[in-house]
């Protein structure tokens, strides 16, 4: 698989109701959604959360396949935490016992919910990045964090850095691909050997990549200066963020869901 096939968190342009929401609404909703996920405790609350996620995905028209594909890279972590929970949860109903491992019914439930929680957490955040262009996302973050300017947090600079980083990820991935091919053409071997050999083998890839990244940064800085960039002061924006009725309704809905799940979860449902 070529590196460029990875579409991790890549924006899917579209015009669904989810796409059209204000990025700030989506950011707040994702935060509320994550809070709710941690408040959920049993089948009822998890079912509600799954329904929230399912409906959101359906409305966004993002193909389910893309969301599932996004889960692939984190599969290892998911399995790992699941196993940890499976074996190390103390409980009364012992299902299997061998050597030092004990699997309890509580452990099974806990591992199951843990897996569901992580997957839903990731799917939810992916839905945010899939439906919000990185520019809007950074705009939203910048706007939400604006109050922090008062305590001298360089909000604009941070947002600019983030959006430039997002802009250059595909370019650098492509470049990595190219340099890898070029070094493989000279007999470099990135796939075999022990850990130290492999780390050493990365040098012919990393050195050119860093040099190129610095060169790009330097050229980009000049190009930005040429286009009159002089910090956040006096800057206007092409897109003005504006909450609409749909935004208020969505926010209210998510707030209600979070409170509801919190209450239900509190009662162990």
């Amino acid at each position, binding site marked *: 698989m070529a590196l460029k096939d990875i579409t991790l968190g890549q924006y899917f342009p579209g015009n669904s109701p989810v796409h059209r929401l204000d990025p700030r609404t989506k950011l707040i909703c994702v935060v509320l959604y994550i809070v709710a996920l941690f408040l959920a405790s049993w089948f009822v609350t998890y079912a509600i959360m799954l329904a929230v996620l399912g409906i959101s995905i359906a409305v966004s028209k993002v193909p389910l396949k893309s969301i599932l594909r996004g889960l692939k890279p984190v599969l290892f972590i998911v399995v790992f935490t699941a196993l940890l929970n499976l074996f190390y949860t103390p409980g009364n109903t012992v299902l299997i016992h061998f050597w030092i491992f004990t699997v309890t019914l509580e452990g099974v439930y806990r591992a199951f919910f843990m897996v569901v929680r992580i997957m839903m957490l990731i799917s939810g955040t992916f839905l945010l990045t899939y439906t919000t262009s990185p*520019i809007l996302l950074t705009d939203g973050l910048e706007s939400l964090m604006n109050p922090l300017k008062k305590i001298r947090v360089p909000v604009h600079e941070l947002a600019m850095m983030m*959006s430039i980083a997002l802009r250059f990820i595909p370019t650098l991935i492509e470049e990595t691909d190219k340099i890898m091919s070029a070094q493989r053409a000279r007999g470099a071997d990135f796939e075999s050997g022990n850990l130290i050999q492999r780390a050493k083998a990365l040098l012919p890839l990393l050195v050119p990549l860093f040099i190129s990244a610095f060169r790009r940064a330097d050229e980009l800085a000049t190009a930005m200066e*040429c286009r009159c960039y002089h910090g956040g002061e006096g800057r*206007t924006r092409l897109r003005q963020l504006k909450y609409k009725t749909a935004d208020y309704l969505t926010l209210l809905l998510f707030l209600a869901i979070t409170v509801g799940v919190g209450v239900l979860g509190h009662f162990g449902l």
Partner: protein
Amino acid sequence: MSVIIRTDALRFAYPAAEGVTPVVLDGVSLDIEEGSFVAVLGHNGCGKSTLAKHMNAILLPSGGTVWVDGIDTGDEDRLLDIRRTVGMVFQNPDNQIVANVVEEDVAFAPENLGVPPAEIRQRVDDALKAVGMYAYREHAPHLLSGGQKQRVAIAGVIAMRPRCIVLDEPTAMLDPIGRKDVLRTIKTLNRERKVTVVLITHHMDEAAQADRLIVMAKGSVVADGAPKAVFSRVEELRQVGLTVPQTVALLWELRQEGYDVPLDALSDEECAQALYQLLQAV
């Protein structure tokens, strides 16, 4: 006609390292007239890119002066005025596109200038139409071809409404189609919008399309005039490491054989015409 950029005895040297003082520009005095299409030709390291970077105060002279629309580029308070008057496009389109969406990128300069949102929208649409990339306004730049990216970069500069654009080897990394598209865009901007164009290049055929051709070598101007006149100085150009278009090269060879052919027949038609007349005369 008024002068938009004037350099007077412009000298530039990088800080000396190990006793050698690399002089990059050595007394360059030029007037770029408003509305003209000027090409600057020279081999790598002749100082042409350094000259370009002086035209909007990215670099400041070590000696001499540069004026943009009458403003001394050393005047820090007028920096934004200078940069919005003279826009700059570089060789690698990837390294000058800031945003993930074409139209957001084109909006970058007007945003920096504090243009009201409604007007930014207008300028962005207008700039994208001017370079023929309006249909791609919602695309991600990294999925475009090199030529398309470079046209987006040009639109990003046009959106500042500059009176002059300096392009530093904008086609060096492009394929023939990309080169053709970019060159056509530049010419249209010059003709229809009266934007002054300074095109830095080492492609003879591109330089041949300008109104005025400046040839640089070792930090100085060695030839300056209409492309036809400059290209007919075949030996001088070869001495400074440049070639001439194939048409001129052929006519020059024939002249060496003692035939009376004009040396200023640059285009296909002119060259064919010149050969036709030569052959008819026999």
